[in-house]
């Protein structure tokens, strides 16, 4: 029925048990992401953004509602769905290269092709020369880039990015935003990006989903119908930004 890479989140609610009492973390989340679409999720800290990604990954099945991938309810994890975690989560006992290769361990590729893919993705994030270095020898931003390389290397149909560029300097950040766009266009992968940076969300995505907390819910959506490449300083960009911020309830603060 649907094309490959489409995601349907229907009436999803999620409770965590805290001190024996249920804590409502997500309430009635409905979200459709089309195949090859790039959406961003913004919202205050603790509103459940990472939790949604965990559910999409299939790491956590204790929720109400349905999450459908290409029409089928997801059950467990799969190489179709990749993630760059908020913490870089490189295994400390593996070198950078081994960490990226681990993602390809079960990918149906010949060994030579795997090696090539690993090298290519390490170069992509600008870490060539650090292949045999352990994660504790990398800076926070370098480790984050390593994690991006690992997330991309699998070439998933849906890529979840949990604040992947948070720890990077402005220039690297801009460069990797371009890379994300390039990869997205080249591979037609569906992207879901969690970010705190509204500019980043508007620059990259087709749609910005705004969440709020207590309990975590979607409060609105802003379609970004600007031609690419987008100009961050254009009036149209600024007015979209105001709409997102006002949905986040911060607009008043911003202009005051």
């Amino acid at each position: 029925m649907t094309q490959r890479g489409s995601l349907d989140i229907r009436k999803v609610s999620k409770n965590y048990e805290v001190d024996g009492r249920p804590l409502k973390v997500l309430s009635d989340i409905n979200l459709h992401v089309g195949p090859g679409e790039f959406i961003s999720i913004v919202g205050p800290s603790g509103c459940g953004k990472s939790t949604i990604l965990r559910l999409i990954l299939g790491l956590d099945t204790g929720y109400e509602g349905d999450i459908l991938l290409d029409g089928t309810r997801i059950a467990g994890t799969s190489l179709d769905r990749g993630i760059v975690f908020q913490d870089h989560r490189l295994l400390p006992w593996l070198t950078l290269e081994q960490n990226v290769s681990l993602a390809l361990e079960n990918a149906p590729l010949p060994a030579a092709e795997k090696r090539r893919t690993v090298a290519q993705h390490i170069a992509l994030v600008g870490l060539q020369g650090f292949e045999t270095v352990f994660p504790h020898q990398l800076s926070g931003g370098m480790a984050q880039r390593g994690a991006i390389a690992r997330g991309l290397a699998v070439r998933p149909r849906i890529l979840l990015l949990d604040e992947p560029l948070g720890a990077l300097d402005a220039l690297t950040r801009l460069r990797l935003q371009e890379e994300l766009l390039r990869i997205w266009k080249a591979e037609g992968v569906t992207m879901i990006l969690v970010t705190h940076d509204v500019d980043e969300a508007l620059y990259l995505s087709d749609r910005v989903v705004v969440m709020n907390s207590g309990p975590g819910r979607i409060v609105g959506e802003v379609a970004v119908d600007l031609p690419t490449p987008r100009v961050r300083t254009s009036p149209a960009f600024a007015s979209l930004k105001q709409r997102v911020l006002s949905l986040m309830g911060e607009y008043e603060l911003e202009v005051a």
Partner: protein
Amino acid sequence: MTSTLDLERRGAAGSASQRALRPGASFLSGLSWRRSFNGIGLILPLGLLALWQTATSLQWIQPVFLPSPLATAGAFWKMLTKQNLHLDFLSSISIVAQAFVYGSLAAVGLGIAAGLSRKVEQFFGPTFDTIRHIPGIAWLPLIVLWLGIGAPAKILVIAKSVFFPVFLNTLSGIRNVEKRYVELGEVLTLTRWQLVRRVLVPSAVPSIMVSLRYSAGLAWALVVVAEGLSGLEGIGFLIFRAQGLLLTDQLVVCMVIIGFVGFAIDRTMYALQRRVLRWKQGFDG
């Protein structure tokens, strides 16, 4: 343990061509190998030696209770050239080495199995927790009845003493793996075996290494006791015989050897630990 080494090797092979440009790696390997020897650590032993010399030359203690350092060195030379000291030494070392290898291999193997499966843990739990509390040395008399006073009885008893610390640490190392790493394994769709090899075992290696270092020292201490209690060779045998014959100088020779060998074992294990755990940040023994 082996799996980490395997990974190392694979990694090294895969990147041999890029050896030349490894900005971080060469920097770190230089950093972590310092600290083994330091002048300050020599002050105390030299002071003790001086005190020993003074005490004997001023006759504070009679030679029969404490021979002078020189007399001790003489006794060492005599034991080495006339009494085949090296054979006793080798026999002790060989017992310790075998006991350590058997005990720790069994412990790591079973520890991983018990760490992975509650069933296995529950199966062995009560038995192990009981046996564990009967000291190795308390087993010796019975085992000697079965196996005789030769090396096998001692190897068995010492291997038992090596086994438990390593087993318990392997088990808890596996159980204490960080959940987020297991989740990563799930996301990468690692099989059970891949998870064990790439995630669970490596994450247990630090605690395994600590227990290996501890039980290597323990094994060396125990061989002395075991040889003193049964058998007719080894450093432990010599030390108790020397006491019986009031050959205090030989007794002190044995004590010094035991100390030095223990020191060497510990430093070797420490170096091994550092080598295996060089991925670990701020690791300092």
